[in-house]
């Protein structure tokens, strides 16, 4: 059920995600060294164009990547008509994009 367009979207989002995830892992190791608090996070991220753009890109890429990844798993285990599968994929992508955008806005604005 994966044609060339979905495949390309999946692999391109993966290429975008790879450096962002490695960066995220590094940030988490650095940030959690002395405990975690809202003010500590927000003091660094609020008003930052850099964090806004990088995590914004992260959210967009992960929405595409997770939606297609889940589509493949669902398609292999549940017999769904193509329309339902497409609806599932778009819904997952849409929810992750919306919630993720809100999260990025929450820490950057």
């Amino acid at each position, binding site marked *: *059920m994966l*044609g*060339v*367009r979905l*495949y390309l979207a999946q692999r391109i989002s993966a290429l975008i995600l790879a450096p962002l995830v490695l960066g995220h892992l590094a940030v988490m190791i650095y940030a959690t060294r002395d405990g975690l608090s809202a003010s500590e996070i927000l003091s660094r991220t609020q008003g930052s164009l850099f964090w806004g753009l990088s995590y914004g890109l992260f959210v967009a890429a992960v929405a595409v990547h997770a939606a297609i990844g889940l589509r493949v798993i669902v398609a*292999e*285990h549940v017999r769904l008509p193509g329309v339902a599968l497409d609806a599932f994929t778009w819904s997952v992508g849409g929810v992750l994009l919306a919630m993720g955008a809100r999260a990025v806005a929450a820490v950057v604005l």
Partner: protein
Amino acid sequence: MQNPSGNLDVSVWRGNGAGGGYSAYLVPVRENQTILDVVTWIQHRLETTLSYRFACRVGMCGSCAMMVNGKPRWTCRTHVQRVIDGNSLKIAPLRNLPVIKDLVCDMAEFFAKWRKAEGHFHPTSTRHEVIAPIPPDDPRRIAASAAIECINCAVCYAACDVVALNLDYLGPAALNRAWTLINDQRDGARAARLAAVSGDSGCFNCHSQQSCAVFCPNELNPTESIAGLKRAAAAAALGGEI
């Protein structure tokens, strides 16, 4: 050398498309015994109604492929002592193919997918043209030669979990064959073949589990071929060819 003694506990799947189950047989141990020897002994001495396939019995034709203790193998080239589980053997028809009777499966869909993948040669010249000069060290020829020894035994098809989960998936053998032809510069159907292997049931469904490579008795690597198809098809799509 002492003659081996004792019996093997052999479970053989019997039935047809409607269903079936395992029947138990005791088969005497012999030196240098293959699974095909075991099945043949059962059919000759214990169960004349047992159906199974074989032809060359020397590892060239691929007809005798079956599931042996859960793994797809050529039974003529599988020594009992290599695969025995304690004292027992479990023999079943190849996975992922409909059963006709007992150990015989219906290969029709396997061959149909070979065609669907455009796994056949489309000539571009006649006997009147000069023979195409293809140097043996040409990278595309090397790639084609590495994958060309497939004898369509369906062991890879039985090993693949994507085939099991996605009924339309063309499968490792058909895609491997398509890859050899993509690399054949005499072939005239590149665009059609790339379109055939890049559809919803095509090469992009491969998850690179590589069970096909693990079990191929000819030591081919369909996963490698499919990775090549993915590159070729993706490049063609980005270039607007398909």
